[in-house]
């Protein structure tokens, strides 16, 4: 089989079923940088959705996904030193990273997991590393390439970033950024000339994990975020996780109704925001599927 260069990409559940605009815009940015994202057949949910009920079952799902990548690792030549699996969803990022770490450090768990995996002809070997797609952008060569190709300035625009709790915790395993004072997403945003504003409790959870048990509680948390962002005079919100995007964008109108507040804050994925700054059109970035209206805020820049 022909070997091409690229990264394996784990799509998860939420992006293919609800948030394809994140992947469209991520691939658009990846194309500019010469990065190829390859989806293997046979993935399942990463396992995070069932951890509260049965953590071991969650580990089995995660480990099986990693085994699928390991089985196929020779069909792609990864630009990094070892085989990388990229993901755009913070939930998947944390779950797969934690599974990877536990299986590399807990020999008893490794035996139990591989025992179950052997029943379906699979084996976890621990040869894959997990990265959030944005971590690839931290590679010096891609960062410089990105910086050199930015053509549209967002100077004067105040942006509130939602990093998302699952990209920063647990800190020994998930190393995207610091939980208490995250700066990396803000730094990427500010490459475009925009100003990343600080706002109260900006490292707190968007509420998405509570959607199943209590939609009311989830909306209270998301409302708290929107309230603080608006209070800090943010004009636009940038996210890096489909769950945070759902809470702040898709649910914004519902939050405005439930809490009788007007927000009208456009919410973009970081890859959409970067895509615009790279000179791409909103249509190339599937922005018609963003719910909160963005035309008015972005018109002066486009």
């Amino acid at each position, binding site marked *: 089989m022909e070997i091409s260069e690229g990264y394996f990409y784990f*799509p998860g559940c939420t992006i293919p079923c609800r948030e394809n605009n994140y992947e469209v815009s991520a691939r658009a940015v990846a194309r500019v940088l010469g990065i190829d994202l390859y989806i293997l057949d046979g993935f399942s949910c990463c396992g995070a959705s069932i951890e509260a009920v049965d953590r071991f079952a969650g580990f089995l799902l995660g480990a*099986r996904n990693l085994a699928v990548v390991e089985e196929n690792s020779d069909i792609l030549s990864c630009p990094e030193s070892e085989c990388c699996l990229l993901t755009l969803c913070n939930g998947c990022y944390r779950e797969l990273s934690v599974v990877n770490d536990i299986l590399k450090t807990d020999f008893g768990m490794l035996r139990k997991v591989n025992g179950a995996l052997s029943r379906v002809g699979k084996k976890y070997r621990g040869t894959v590393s997990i990265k959030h797609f944005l971590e690839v952008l931290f590679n010096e060569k891609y960062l410089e390439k990105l910086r050199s190709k930015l053509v549209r300035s967002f100077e004067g625009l105040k942006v509130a970033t939602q990093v998302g709790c699952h990209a920063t915790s647990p800190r020994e395993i998930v190393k995207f950024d610091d939980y*208490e004072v995250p700066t990396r997403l803000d730094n990427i945003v500010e490459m475009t000339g925009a100003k990343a504003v600080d706002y109260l409790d900006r490292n707190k959870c968007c509420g998405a994990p509570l959607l199943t048990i209590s939609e009311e509680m989830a909306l209270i948390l998301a409302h708290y975020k929107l309230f603080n962002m608006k209070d800090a005079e943010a004009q636009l919100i940038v996210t890096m996780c489909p769950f945070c995007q759902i809470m702040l964008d898709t649910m914004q109108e519902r939050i405005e109704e439930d809490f009788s507040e007007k927000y009208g804050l456009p919410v973009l994925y970081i890859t959409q925001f970067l895509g615009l700054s790279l000179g791409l059109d909103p249509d190339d970035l599937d922005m018609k599927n963003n719910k909160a209206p963005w035309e008015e805020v972005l018109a002066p820049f486009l």
Partner: protein
Amino acid sequence: MYFSLRKNESRGDHILSFSSNKESGKRIDFDFINELISRTGGIGVLKCMSCGICSASCIIRKFDEDFNPRKIIIKAILGGKEEILKDEKIWFCATCGLCSERCAKNAKPEEVIIAITNIAAEQGFIPKSIREVCKKVRETGMIYELDDFTNFKRTKVGLPEVKKVDPEELKELLKETKIFANFDEERSEDVV
């Protein structure tokens, strides 16, 4: 020495007190502690000193004082097992991890609470809404419907199709998990 959590009527919360009187208090529930530490993440229950940094940081507790990480853990230690396993509120952990980041003893309260919800699930106490998500994952391998229409929408915007796991393989893989394979056995009432 016996410990008890007495309800303080005027303040509406609990006071931890000691007594040598067997009738007044509960003993440390070593059986439940052993149960907890046998689960991934449960070991933190031995490290907890009930300082409350977790509850002080918890964004859920800020808006719903009935979800209190410190109280859940101290109840687990002091014989409050029956109460917490049946309590719907233990499922309100958002797994945001802030409590674990800040815990003074690195006890990872979030993981202890997840170990507790795992035990509750094993005994049949699972909120109905969460049970539905588990059914979806067990049957299809995903939390949402990922079918031909999903892939049609993807190809329309230039994305490659996603071919998910074979349901038979999934069934075989999850067959012998203690909880997940058995969660819809009617053992106890639904929590919600």
